[in-house]
């Protein structure tokens, strides 16, 4: 999952960015409204965390501009303004959620996760494909009842494929959703991640769940009976 954090406080950029990366998200950070709008319209983000008071272009104007361009990415507003009228204004401008500073980091992460889930039309935190089970809150995976230990990036890849189970997901889509600007992408980074994931998932059951569609991408689906 890829998140854009538009926040002018350098310290919050660092701490929230670190927390998101630690949670397995790919995170891009922007320090002002104009840059934030440019990034939001140029990349495919699952969630945008947007501060309201921003230099150059304020968060609400950014949000309105984004919605006017037809961008449906889920947006979580982050602001020091706590009045009901401020929250209503933010939500009416097109925000999907609103969090007042100071906030609990866990709550921010939970809300971002909920927004990611909503992006794939799911309301529960439990994904199951054949004998594969994923708890998206605890970020734990089981195959044939046995726990599978994954690295954050591998987990994010699996969760992304699971959210889109049955669909062919192209390599570029995976790159766009899982890798932020800080990762120097090499041509085989997705390929090696998929390979590692396949290896770990086959430990408990050798039946492959992730198939390669040559020239198209990857598909996670239950094996034919």
């Amino acid at each position, binding site marked *: 999952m890829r998140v854009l954090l538009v926040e002018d*406080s350098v*310290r919050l950029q660092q701490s929230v960015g670190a*927390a998101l990366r*630690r949670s397995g998200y790919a995170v891009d950070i922007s320090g*002002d409204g104009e840059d934030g709008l440019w990034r939001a319209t140029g990349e495919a983000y699952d969630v945008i965390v947007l501060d309201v*008071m921003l230099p150059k272009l304020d968060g609400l104007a950014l949000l309105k501009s984004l919605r006017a361009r037809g961008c449906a990415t889920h947006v979580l507003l982050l602001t*020091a303004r706590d009045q009901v009228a401020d929250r209503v204004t933010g939500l009416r401008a097109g925000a999907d959620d609103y969090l*007042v500073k100071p906030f609990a*980091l*866990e709550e921010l992460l939970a809300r971002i996760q909920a927004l990611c889930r909503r992006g794939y039309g799911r309301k529960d935190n439990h994904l199951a494909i054949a004998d594969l089970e994923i708890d998206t809150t605890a970020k734990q995976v089981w195959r044939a009842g046995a726990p599978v230990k994954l690295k954050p990036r591998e987990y994010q890849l699996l969760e992304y494929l699971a959210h889109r189970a049955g669909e062919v997901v192209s390599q570029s889509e995976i790159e766009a959703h899982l890798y932020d600007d800080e990762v120097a992408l090499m041509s085989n980074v997705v390929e090696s991640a998929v390979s590692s994931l396949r290896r770990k998932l086959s430990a408990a059951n050798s039946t492959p769940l992730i198939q390669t569609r040559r020239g198209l991408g990857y598909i996670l689906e239950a094996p034919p009976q």
Partner: protein
Amino acid sequence: MNTIRQQLTRRLLLGMGSLLLVGAVVVYGTTRTALTRQFDETLRAQATALASVVETDHGQIVVDSADDIVREFNRSEGGTFFQVWRTNGTVDVVSLSLRDRRLPWPAGHLASSGCWNTTLPGGLAIRAIALQFQPHPADEASVAHPASVPVEAVLVVAADRRHLNQALTTLAVILAGSSLLVLVLTGGLVPLLLRRELAPLEALAGQAQRITAESLATRFATDGLPGELAPISSRLNDLLQRLQAAFERERQFSDDLAHELRTPIAELRSLAELTLKWPEERNDGQVLAIALQMESIVTRLLALARVSQGLTTTEVQPVNLPGLVQAAARQLDERRAKRRLAFQLDLPPALTIPSDPTLLRAIVTNLLDNAVEYSAPDTTVQIVGTVQNHTFQLQFTNTARQLDAADVPHLFERFWRKDAARTGGDHAGLGLPLARALATSLGCTLTATLNEPSQLTLTLSGPIRFENRQRPPHLTAI
């Protein structure tokens, strides 16, 4: 509740009632006097006419009953009466209208020759007049008679006064009735008129009652108001405008304060939670920086509050201004060098002013700090001191490309920042308000001007001689 309308109604009714009562009493009294006088004159004329027909005949008092005047008195149902006494009290003649009744002896009324009220036996109310005279003899010959002695007679003439009393009673009833009617009509009309005439006042009161902290943008109508209310409405509008501005300032202050404190708290909290969850992300340097930033905000706010409330004590003593400015400038050397700025000082070396060195140092530090923070890099900050007309001026000039003329009036507002997003935490917009508050507490002034091209000059002015005044005027607003 005691309203103006009720008070006016009560007082108008009371006033009108009193006027009507006095008017009725005067009219009644005047009419009564006039009617009684007329009655008395008629009675006196009758008595005089009757006296002319009272004669003595051989020592006897006689009245010619054939005379027209006497005939009037002799009608049995007549309302006029007379009786003639000798002065010794013996009755000689009575009118037939008295029948078997007798008039009372006019004791005490002979001397006054006035009329008086009395009653006949049987209760008939009458008014009487008494005359004492010597009747002339009926026969002129008897006058010459040596034995004839003049007779002294007392004549009392009376008339039924029931008509007079009835007329007066009728008058009293008419006066009382009409007064009451006028009073009742007034009682009905006055509230109606007052309600209509006081409607603008009630509308004004109603509007004032509906004003709350959320509706301070409301203004009272001034068109079509009576002359007495128009100035009140106008003053209320002025007051509302000032109140609204004050509320706006307070709201803005609260918003700004909330933002200035919420942001570092949010930073601190997210850092702490990040460290707890992933200890390897620990960053104590950032925590310290946030704590120092919050400390700076709180310290400045407290200082501002203290100075604004006149709680600071000033110890005025001779202060060498160039020395103080140089010391303050040296403190900022590191930050100045980082921004590649130069300080250019032009101060008269012997310039000594009466001031509190601690507070003055705080002002100068704030002004230099402001210049270092907001000057464009690779520029020079000029500090020039001059003396003119017993007043010193200390001017701090630096480039401020981000400012325009419209920003200058806001420079001394608490938490004002050019950047609406309030990005960057080291300056919360409290330095200049604090410097101005401190300057005022020292009896100095601090002003700002923006000159082309983008040169901001902050000028601190104050007296260079000691004054008798121990304390500066107390600050009321910043």
